[in-house]
């Protein structure tokens, strides 16, 4: 009796699952960001080589994500779009900037300097480790 009442009570207060809505939001926001990046890159190829246009587009997105994080806008948007805002490279910039800002009061060295990579460090660590492992394997195979 007690248990069934408890179950009923807890089911009433469960957060409704919005998996489908979240997935669609992530799909649209991530896709639109890529289209915007493609537009900017196409515009920049008129003035720069294709490789430099790609790099400049990525740098622009990193800058925008940093500034939006500074104004507190990025986190508000990311709440709606979910993965659409942490999978693109802007999420990396947001992770760096927000951890640096959060730890600002701990000082320049142990605050901003050390804590900047608190969230984004794992991406760099696993990127480097996997890149070196896979490159060594592929290089080893090419020698055979």
């Amino acid at each position, binding site marked *: 009796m007690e248990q069934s009442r408890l179950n009923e009570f807890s089911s009433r207060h469960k957060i409704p699952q919005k*998996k489908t809505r*979240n*997935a*669609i939001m*992530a*799909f*649209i*926001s*991530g*896709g*639109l*960001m*890529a*289209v915007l*990046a*493609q537009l900017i*890159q196409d515009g920049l190829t008129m003035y720069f080589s294709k490789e430099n246009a*790609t790099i400049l587009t*990525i*740098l622009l997105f*990193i*800058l925008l994500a*940093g*500034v939006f*994080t*500074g*104004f*507190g806008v990025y986190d508000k948007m990311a709440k709606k779009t*979910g*993965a*659409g805002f*942490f*999978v*693109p*490279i802007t*999420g*990396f*910039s947001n992770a*760096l*900037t927000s951890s*640096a800002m959060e730890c*600002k009061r701990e000082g320049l060295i142990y605050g*901003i300097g050390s804590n*900047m990579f608190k*969230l*984004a460090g*794992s*991406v*760099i660590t*696993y*990127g*480097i480790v*996997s*890149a*070196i492992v*896979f*490159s*060594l394997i*592929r*290089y080893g195979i090419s020698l055979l």
Partner: protein
Amino acid sequence: MIYLNAFLLCGLLCMVAQLIYDSTQLTPGHITSMLVILGSLLESFNIYDALIRWCGMGANLPITSFGHSLTHAALKSAENEGWIGIFTGVFDKSASGISFAIFVAFWIAILFRSHD
């Protein structure tokens, strides 16, 4: 056409990440790390270069491209310099993104105050 491909690839990656995030206990840190390893793995089979040809910024924008550029640069440098090139060249392609992100994060942290 490249716009549609870019939309679909980046959108699908984000959607899969969102589904993993909603269905498991994994944090964004876990998911982005996994995506970087995925990009690195795809590059070691030369698949990611093809994705960039088809999808342009749709393949360059997601964090998987970070794994791609690390492995790509390491392999390219290994072609010229042998195994030592893997270690000297691993950052060649992604240095601009990382150094600029650190630069931006530093100045934003100096200039702005945390909102919470």
